[in-house]
C-alpha cells in the first residue's frame, strides 16, 4: 500500500514526489525508533493487544493503552491523508476522471523557484480540484503565500517557514494611495492574484466550468498580451500594469455561504486584488456585499437577477451580462408578436432572487399583450424531481410555459415536462438561456423555442472580436464557447482595461475608471458601463431553436433573430433601488 502510494507520488509529482517518498522512508524508521522504545517500556502490549485489554486494571497499563491509542489515531490520520492523495492519483491514472491540466506544476519543495513540466500525457492532471469543498487550486501558479503554506505543511518545516523573512513585504508600494482592502499588499510584488470561484459541482456545474474556462483563457491572453485582449483593453501590453496575473480556482457550489468563505480566503490569504465568478445570483448578491466590505473589486459573471445591479448593487461590483429586465424587455414584445395576444402563462420559477426577478419582469412586460399568469410554480434550487410542479402546470390550462430554471435544473425540468406531455400542449419559452441547454435537451424539444441569451457563437459572423474569441477558445478547449465563457472573458478584459486606465490597483481609482463610461469594443460590439448602477450597457441576443434538419453543423442549435441594443431595454438606474455605497 505505501509503496503503491510512493509510486503514485513519484508519478504524480515527479521529482517532488521522489523527495517526498525518500523523506518518508528516512523519517519512518526514526519515528518508529522514537516511539517503539517508550511504548515497549510503558507496558507489555503490542497494538494488537490494546483492544482486548481495555479493561485492564493497572494504571500504567492503561496509560500505555491510551498512548498507543492516540499514536494509532494520529498516525492513522497522517497515513490516510497520504494514501488518499495517492489514491486520487491512481483514480486519475485509471481514467476514472479526466479533469483538465494546468500547464505547469511547480515544485513545492523549497521556494517554488523551480518548475517542471509534469510527466503526464495531456488531458491528465494528477490532482484535480473537483468536488464540493472550498478548494484552492494553488498548484497552478499559486501566490507566494499559499505556496509557502503548502511547503510548510507538507514537510512540517514550521520553524523555517515561520521566519518573518518569508512574509509578504508590504512596504515599497509603487504608488502612494492609503492602504485599503488588499491594496497595496496584493500588488506589491511582481504579480497580482485573482480569485475565481464558480460552481463545479451541483446543478450549475456545467455553466460553471464553461465560465472558468473563459476566465482562465482571458488571464492567459492577458499575461501573453494577446491581440484579442488588446482590442478590448487598448492600454494593455502584457499582464496588468506590467504585473503577471495569477489566479486561484475554487468551487463555490453555487451556494452563497461557500462562495463567501472561499473568496474570503482568497482575499485574506492570497491578497486577491479582484475576485470573480458566479452562476447563481444569490452568490453574486452575497459577494457584492463582501466586496464592498473588504474593498476588493468583484465581478459577477453569470447573474440574471435585477437585484445584482438593482437593490443589492455594490460600488465594488460590475456586471457584464444581460439580466431579467433586459431579457423581458427584449423577448417580451417579440413573444406577443409571434405567439399572439391574451395568452395564459404558466411559470416555473427557481426560488431565489434570479427566478423571482425574471418572473416579475416578464409578467410586467407581457401584461401589455394581455398575457395572464395562470400559475407560478416556485421550485427549490436543485430539485431532483419536478413531477408535482409539472402536474400543476399540465393541469393549469396554460398556453405558454415559461421555464425560468437554469443550469441542470432547466435541463431536467424541460426533459420531465416533455414526459408529462406539457410541451405538446404549451409553447415553451426560455427567458434566460442556460449554456448548453439546446445541446442537452436536443433540437427535437428546442425546435422553435424562443430564448433570450447573452452570446451565441454564430455571432462571429457579425462581430470580428466574437470570431477571434470563438476561434481561440475552440482551439484551446475543443468546443464552441457558451455565453458564460464569453462573459468571463469579457469581465477579465474590461477589468484589465479599467486598471490600466486607473494606472493603479487602488480600488477607488479603478472604480472611477470603470464609472467613466468608457466605450469599449467587445465580442458583441460597442459596450460601456453605466456609472450609476455598474451595469454594462450591451445587447440582448434573441434566438430561436432550429429544427434538426436545418442545423448546418452539430453546434448550430439556434437562429439569431435579433441583436437588440441594450440601452433602450434597461430601466432607469435607480428604478430597482440601486444605491451605490462609498468607495472607501
Amino acid at each position, binding site marked *: 500500500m505505501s509503496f503503491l502510494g510512493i509510486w503514485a507520488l513519484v508519478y504524480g509529482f515527479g521529482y517532488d514526489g521522489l523527495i517526498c517518498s525518500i523523506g518518508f522512508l528516512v523519517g519512518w524508521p526514526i519515528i518508529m525508533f522514537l516511539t517503539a522504545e517508550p511504548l515497549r517500556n510503558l507496558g507489555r502490549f503490542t497494538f494488537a493487544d490494546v483492544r482486548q485489554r481495555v479493561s485492564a486494571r493497572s494504571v500504567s497499563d492503561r496509560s500505555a493503552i491510551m498512548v498507543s491509542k492516540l499514536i494509532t489515531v494520529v498516525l492513522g*490520520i497522517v497515513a490516510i491523508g497520504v494514501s488518499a*492523495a495517492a489514491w486520487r492519483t491512481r483514480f486519475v491514472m485509471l481514467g476514472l476522471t479526466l479533469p483538465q491540466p494546468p500547464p505547469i506544476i511547480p515544485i513545492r519543495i523549497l521556494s517554488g523557484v523551480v518548475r517542471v513540466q509534469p510527466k503526464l500525457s495531456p488531458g491528465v492532471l494528477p490532482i484535480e480540484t473537483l468536488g464540493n469543498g472550498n478548494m484552492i487550486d*494553488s498548484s497552478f501558479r499559486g501566490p507566494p503565500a499559499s505556496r509557502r503554506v503548502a511547503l510548510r505543511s507538507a514537510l512540517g518545516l514550521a520553524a523555517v517557514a515561520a521566519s518573518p523573512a518569508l512574509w509578504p513585504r508590504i512596504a515599497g508600494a509603487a504608488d502612494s494611495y492609503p492602504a485599503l482592502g488588499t491594496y497595496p499588499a496584493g500588488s506589491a510584488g511582481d504579480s497580482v492574484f485573482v480569485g475565481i470561484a464558480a460552481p463545479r459541482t451541483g446543478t450549475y456545474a456545467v455553466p460553471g466550468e464553461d465560465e472558468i474556462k473563459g476566465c482562465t483563457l482571458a488571464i492567459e491572453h492577458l499575461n501573453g498580451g494577446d491581440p484579442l485582449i488588446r482590442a478590448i483593453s487598448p492600454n494593455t501590453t502584457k499582464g496588468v500594469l506590467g504585473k503577471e496575473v495569477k489566479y486561484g480556482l475554487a468551487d463555490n457550489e453555487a451556494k452563497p455561504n461557500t462562495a463567501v468563505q472561499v473568496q474570503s480566503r482568497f482575499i485574506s490569504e492570497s491578497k486577491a486584488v479582484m475576485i470573480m465568478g458566479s452562476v447563481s445570483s444569490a452568490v453574486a448578491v452575497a459577494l457584492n456585499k463582501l466586496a464592498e466590505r473588504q474593498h476588493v473589486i468583484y465581478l459577477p459573471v453569470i447573474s440574471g437577477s435585477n437585484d445584482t445591479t438593482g437593490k443589492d448593487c455594490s460600488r465594488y461590483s460590475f456586471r457584464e451580462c444581460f439580466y431579467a429586465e433586459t431579457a423581458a424587455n427584449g423577448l417580451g414584445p417579440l413573444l406577443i408578436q409571434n405567439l399572439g395576444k391574451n395568452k395564459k402563462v404558466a411559470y416555473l420559477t427557481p426560488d431565489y432572487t434570479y427566478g423571482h426577478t425574471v418572473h416579475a419582469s416578464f409578467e410586467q412586460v407581457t401584461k401589455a399583450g394581455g398575457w395572464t399568469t395562470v400559475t407560478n410554480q416556485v421550485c427549490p434550487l436543485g430539485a431532483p424531481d419536478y413531477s408535482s410542479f409539472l402536474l400543476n402546470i399540465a393541469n393549469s390550462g396554460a398556453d405558454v410555459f415559461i421555464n425560468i430554471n437554469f443550469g441542470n435544473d432547466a435541463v431536467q425540468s424541460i426533459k420531465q415536462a416533455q414526459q408529462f406531455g406539457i410541451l405538446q400542449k404549451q409553447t415553451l419559452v426560455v427567458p434566460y438561456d442556460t449554456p448548453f441547454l439546446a445541446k442537452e435537451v436536443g433540437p427535437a424539444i428546442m425546435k422553435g423555442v424562443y430564448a433570450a441569451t447573452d452570446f451565441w457563437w454564430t455571432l462571429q459572423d457579425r462581430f470580428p472580436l466574437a470570431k477571434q474569441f470563438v476561434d481561440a477558445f475552440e482551439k484551446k478547449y475543443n468546443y464552441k464557447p457558451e455565453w458564460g465563457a464569453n462573459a468571463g472573458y469579457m469581465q477579465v478584459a474590461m477589468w484589465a482595461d479599467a486598471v490600466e486606465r486607473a494606472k493603479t490597483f487602488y480600488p477607488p481609482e479603478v472604480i472611477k475608471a470603470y464609472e467613466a463610461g468608457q466605450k469599449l469594443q467587445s465580442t458583441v460590439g460597442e459596450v460601456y458601463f453605466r456609472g450609476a448602477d455598474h451595469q454594462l450597457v450591451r445587447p440582448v441576443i434573441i434566438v430561436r431553436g432550429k429544427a434538426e434538419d436545418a442545423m448546418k453543423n452539430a453546434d448550430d442549435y439556434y437562429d439569431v433573430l435579433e441583436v437588440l441594443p441594450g440601452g433602450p431595454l434597461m430601466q432607469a438606474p435607480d428604478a430597482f433601488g440601486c444605491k451605490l455605497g462609498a468607495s472607501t
Partner: protein
Amino acid sequence: MSGAARVRRWLPETLTAIGLALGPFVLPMLGFAPDTASRILMWGLFGIGFDILFGYTGLLSFGQSAFFGTGGFAAAYLLTHGLTVSVLAAMAAGTVAAMVAGLVVGVIALRRTGIYFAMITVAIAQVFFFVENSPLSAWTGGENGIPGVPSPLFVLGSLRWPVQFGWSMFTFIGICFFVGLVIARTIVRSPVGAILVAIRDNPVRAQALGHSVGAYKLTAFVIASGYAGVAGGLLGVLQGYMPPDAFTFDTSGQLVMQTVIGGAGTLFGPLAGAAVWLYLRDFLQGPMQLGSAWRLVLGLVFVLLVCFLRRGLIGGIADLIALARRKRHVEAPEESAPVDFGSPTLASVGPAARRRTAGSHDGPILETRDLTRRYGGLVANRDIDFTVCEGELRGVIGPNGAGKTTFFKMLTCEVHPSSGRIFFHGQDITGYDVSRVCQLGLTKSYQINQLFARLTVRQNIEIAVLAERRGRFRLDLFRALHSVPGLAVQVQQTLALIGLSARADVPVSDLAYGEKRRLEIGLALATSPTLLLLDEPLAGMSPRERAETVHLLRTIRHGRTLIVVEHDMDALFELAERVTVLHEGRILAEGTPAEIQRSAMVQEAYLGGVAAA
C-alpha cells in the same frame, strides 16, 4: 476552597484567555488566516452548547442547525433592517430567539429518547430550514440569505474599537468564546451540571432519585440552543453575510462530527474538532491537492475515532492527565476490603435527617387499596390491599412470577396501576411521577444495580443527596456544586453508613460487586427516605458480602421503614418483623416469619411453583 484548588479551578480559563490573547500573534506564524481562526472559534462556541447537550447530558441532536440559523437570522435581520445598531443587542436578541425556539422544539423532541430523539431533531431542523426558505423568505431572504450584516463598533468615551475583518474580528469572537466558555464551565460545575451527567449515565435512576429529568434535559437543550444562537449571530457578523446554509443538515452534521473528533464531554473538544476540521480541510485541499476528497479523509478519521477513541482527541488527552494524576494517589485495592461500618452512633445520625410530609398523619405509612395491574390480557397484580406501619421492617416473598417486581414498581410509581389507589403518609400518590414520590420520601434500591457507572462513588451519592437538598428541579446554574448547603456532610455520612468512605473517589466501574450493591442501597438511602424499598438487596452476593449487607440493613433500619423483597428466606426471616407472601399476583398470606414458615398455604404455593417450573 484553598488557594491551590482555586488556581486549579480557574486554570483552563486562564490558559484559554492567554491562548486567545496570543492568537493574533502566534496563529499567523502557524499558517492560520484570521478568517479560518475566527471560524474555528465560532464553531468552538457553537460546539460548547452542543457538548453540554451531548457530551454531558447524552442527548445526540442532529438539529442544532435550527437554532444556529434562528439566532443568526434574527440578529442579522435586526441589524440589516436598522432595528438596532448594536451588534451585541442584536446577538442577544438572536440568542433569546434561539432559546425560545429551543424551548418549543425541546418540549416536542424530548418526549422521546435515543434514536427517536435523534430522528426528531433531524426532522425539526428540516422544518426550520423549509420555513426559513419559503414562508419566511420575506424576512430571511430565502435562498439569498441576508447580505450586508455590519461589524460591531464599540465606543467607550473617546475610545473607538471598530471590529474589522481580520484579527480584530478574531479578538471579538475570541472574547465571545471566552465568555461562553466561562459560563459553560460554571454550569458544568454547578449542581445542574452534576445532574446532567447523571442523566447521561442513567436517566432512569436520576428520575427515581427525585430529579425531574425532563426539566433538566429541557434546560440542557435550551442552553445548547442559546449557544447555537450566539454562534449563528457571530457567523453573520464574521462573514458580513447570513447564509441560508446555516439551517441545513450539513451544519448539524459538521457540528456533531467536530465535537466527536475533538472529544465530547470536555467543552474544549468542539474547539479542537473545529480546528482539526478546518485545518485539515485547508491542508488537504491546498498542499495535499485532494480536492473534494478532504471530506472523505475527515469521514474516515471520524469513523476511526468513533470506533477506537470514543472520547476524541481532547478526551484522550484528558484521560491521560487524569491517569497520570491518579498514579500519584493511592493505588486502588483490587478486591473489596472487609468493611468497618464505623461507629453505630455516626451511622444512626446518618442521612436520616428525615422530612415529615406536611400534616402529621397517624395512620400507616403506606397503604394500597385494590391495586391491580394488567398487561394486555395478563394480570400481574390483582386487588392487592397492603399496609405498612411506620418503623416496620416488612419482608415480601413469593415464587418467581408472583408479581413482586410489578408490585414494587407500582409502589414507587414507576408503573401506574390499572386500578386501585396508593396512599403514602395518607396522601394519595396514585399516578404521581416517580421523582415526586421520591421527593416525598419513598424510594427504592434496585434488584439490578442502577448506578451512574462513569462517576465516582462520591459523585453517585452527591446526585442522590442533591435531589433531597434541591428538590425536583432548580435552576441554580451559577452556584458551585460544593456550596450546596449540607451536601458534603450528608455525603460523608452516607458513605460512612455504607462503608465506602475509603473508596469515595473510585469510579463505580472499578468497584467490586458487593461494593456496588452497597452503593445501590446507599443511593436510595442518601435521599433520606422515610420509606425505603429494597428489591433483593442480597442477590448474587458472596457469603461474606451477604453478611456485610445484612449488617448494613440492620443498621439502617433504625428510624426508617423498610420493605424488602428477597429470595434469601433465611436472611429475610431473620430480619423482617412481618412477611407478606405474594402468589399469582395476589396476597396469599401475611404474618410474622414464624407464622409464614408454618403456613401450609405458603408451602403449597412454593412447592407448586417449583413443580410448575
